[in-house]
């Protein structure tokens, strides 16, 4: 009689990569609904395009690399990458922009570096930054909230806009679009309009950030907290990103409120919330020690602020994440926890 002799441990917990990825997607659902409520069908269309492209590229790369296709294709990681990328692309952006970004994320940023677990950069952010640098105009045409519902911009109309670039008679993309709050403050400051003046002159500002954006931020925050509760992500990175962004913004805000936006505005604007809970926490490219995660998160928070306030782009999360990705191995090396029985230093 032959007995099986596997090595210990003989039991395993029920967490799997697929389950983690599914939970990340679940946590994004409230934010997706909120986003669609304020900005129309665009995100869902972009997400669908991105997911289909990403799965196709994943399949292709797994075939080329002679990896077990079904096994990796169903781990869910590529879907998360695609959905996060879709969040960063304007709602009425042409379809090929999304396809390009998703393909770059999966083929170059993920598979050319060795696939799942080996990519030094966050694939979604790599795809986003490539689009932002290559097509800055297309990537900065955002919509004001509710404009599409006011105009009765239905799903077929949105599809027409995304795939054919055709808009209802009398409208152009430029006419529909409006600057985001971050962008607006930045451009107005450059022509010496104070923040208070900008806010009172434009109706897009809500309580903290922009109307709509702050609500999406709320839902992302709740989804993120649920992920922490479910132990899919640890609290260190989101707390460090938001905490450092808030602190730095507070210091400058207290110094000069006319030229520096409030800390709450920074936290609830742009991709700060999404970046803190869903992008910077991508485990593969982030720092992995508890202390390292905090350092890594602080780095992202500060860099985001620096790029937003003094850089050339209205938002800085994408660049900040990629820059800190570069530093992650070094951070890990210098933040090893003390091991049991070793001297406290």
């Amino acid at each position, binding site marked *: *009689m032959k*007995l*099986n*002799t*596997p*090595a*210990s*441990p*003989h*039991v*395993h*917990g*029920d*967490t*799997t*990569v697929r*389950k*983690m990825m599914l939970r990340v997607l679940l946590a994004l659902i409230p934010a997706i609904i909120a986003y669609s409520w304020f900005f129309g069908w665009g995100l869902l269309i972009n997400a669908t395009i991105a997911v289909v492209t990403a799965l196709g590229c994943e399949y292709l790369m797994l075939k080329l690399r002679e990896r*077990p296709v079904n*096994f*990796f294709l169903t*781990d869910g*990681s590529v879907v998360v990458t695609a959905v996060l990328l879709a969040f960063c692309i304007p709602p009425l952006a042409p379809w090929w922009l999304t396809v390009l970004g998703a393909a770059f994320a999966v083929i170059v940023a993920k598979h050319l570096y060795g*696939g*799942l*677990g*080996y990519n030094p950069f966050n694939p979604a952010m790599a795809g986003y930054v490539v689009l932002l640098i290559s097509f800055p105009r297309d990537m900065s045409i955002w919509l004001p909230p509710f404009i599409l519902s006011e105009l009765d911009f239905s799903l077929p109309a949105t599809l027409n806009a995304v795939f054919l670039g055709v808009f209802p008679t009398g409208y152009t993309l430029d006419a529909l679009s409006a600057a985001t709050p971050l962008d607006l403050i930045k451009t107005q400051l450059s022509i010496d309009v104070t923040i208070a003046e900008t806010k009172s002159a434009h109706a897009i500002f809500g309580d903290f950030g922009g109307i709509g954006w702050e609500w999406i931020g709320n839902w992302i925050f709740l989804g993120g907290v649920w992920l922490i509760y479910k*132990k899919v992500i*640890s609290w260190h990175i989101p707390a460090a990103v938001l905490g450092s962004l808030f602190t730095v913004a507070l210091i400058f805000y207290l110094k000069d409120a006319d030229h520096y936006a409030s800390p709450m505005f920074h936290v609830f604007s742009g991709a700060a919330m999404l970046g803190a809970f869903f992008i910077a926490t991508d*485990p*593969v490219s*982030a720092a*992995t*020690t*508890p202390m390292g*995660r905090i350092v890594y998160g602080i780095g992202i928070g500060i860099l985001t602020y620096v790029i937003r306030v003094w850089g050339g782009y209205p938002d800085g999360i994408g660049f900040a994440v990629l820059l800190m990705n570069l530093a992650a191995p070094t951070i*890990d090396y210098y933040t*090893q*926890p*003390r*091991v*049991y*029985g*070793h001297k406290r230093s």
Partner: protein
Amino acid sequence: MMRRLYNFAGGVRLKEHKRESTSSPVGRTQLPQKIILPLHQHIGVPAKPIVNAGERVLKGQVVAEAGNNISAPIHASTSGTVLAIEDHPIAHPSGLPARCIIIKTDGKDEAAGGYGAPCDTSALTQEQLNAAIKQAGIVGLGGAGFPTYLKLANEAKKITTLILNGVECEPYITCDQMLMRGHSADIVRGLVIMQRALGIKRAIIAIENNKPKELELMQEAIYEAGTPDMELVQVPTVYPAGGEKQLIQTLTGKEVPSQGLPMDIGIVCHNVGTTYAIYRAIAFNEPLISRYITIAGSVAKAQVLDVLIGTPVSHLIEQCGGNRKTLSRVIMGGPMMGFALHDDEAPVVKTTNCILVNSVISDVPLPSRSNFSLPCIRCGACADACPVGLLPQQLYWYARARDFDKVQDYNLFDCIECGCCDYVCPSQIPLVQYYRYAKTAIWQQENEKTLSDISRQRHEFHKFRQEREKQERELRHKQKRQAVDGASTQDNKKAAIQAAMERVRRKREHSDVTPKNIDNLTEQQQKLIEEADARRKKKLEELKPEKITINTSGRESE
């Protein structure tokens, strides 16, 4: 007063599966046909057999004596005849057989003289207690099997605290729990003996908070024994709270130094099973020949049995209603740190606490690892679970890359192989296997290095010896020469030569033999010689160099 507890880092919460085997009382095993006693059941050197095949042995009789100071004797678990002393399958991860004493039982269960006789323990001195514990073959019954008397020696007075480990944190294992349920008073008596052997007062008894019944029983036993120095502490149910290092941390906040022993911080830990065995050995002169073992998993009746050491595992499985023909996996120990047996004919040993059975028909609900693992996604769940504070993901990375220097920089050898990292890994990577592999490879490298160091030293000594011998030889020669030189001056030499010539001359004069040399030649002989000389000369002329022509300018003339 409540003791302040310190949480150790990490750990995991596991499904306990303890109710099945604790719902019925402890059973006795039917006597097996054969008892198989491996000579190596403890840490240290194997025991040396002192019986021969064919010899009749009695229950409690020593059949193998301690190999040296770090070893333990082995006793016959029942009466019978020694069949053989030979290699037999044993419970070892390698699956390699080892030397065992095999006894055919005779069913009489006849005990050796003095076995089971109550003794007065109060008169025994520290040394006598220790000697008796050593002679009873008691080793750590919690799993490691370190000879117990070594952990009860306290001549240097370094040990100040005795911790009694009743935590039993692995799922399924319940033997210590059932022992505390049935013999709480004996355990307290055993603890008193240990306190006396160590010459200390302070003792802490730790029990996990999922065993309230046993906690209460122990509390009563302490109260009845009137031993106020014993402190009973309830610790949280987190795996691996029962690990020695983790338990010490939980109770005292102190950490055992890396690569060190609890003794280094004045603490010694013993298992409740060991304590009970000590009580039986000292108070009733019963050496360690049986212990409680949990049989659980795919058996009709999971329960704790009082098992004779040396009983084949298959015998226990059958007794609990398991089907030997459908076995798929038999684990000795718990599901987290136990190892799978290669053969169910292997006997239980002193350190066996649990037999966990899997069958192909009704597999125990063990959610086991899938056969494929995804790459590490560096999620850090392993680092959060590690009770030692290691970075398992980095260890894995370097172990896989065979970077053995780096893996040691990340403190591989502080890993206790508890399996927490492996359990929580979402990529289902067999992490512990990688660490075992790396440890083994490093040990092997170090062995090889030691061997090459030895041979290099040998070679260097060889060279040194050759050099030394050469010098010695030269010295000897020099001394001899000096001895000769010192005796003769220049005049002496001349005189010696003179004397020698004189001797030769005298010898010649007195000799009858005419020497056949060139002094007295006949004319004919002279002539022959001259002819021969002429011929030789002629031949030489012919061979003169100028007659040999060597064409050195051949090429140029062409």
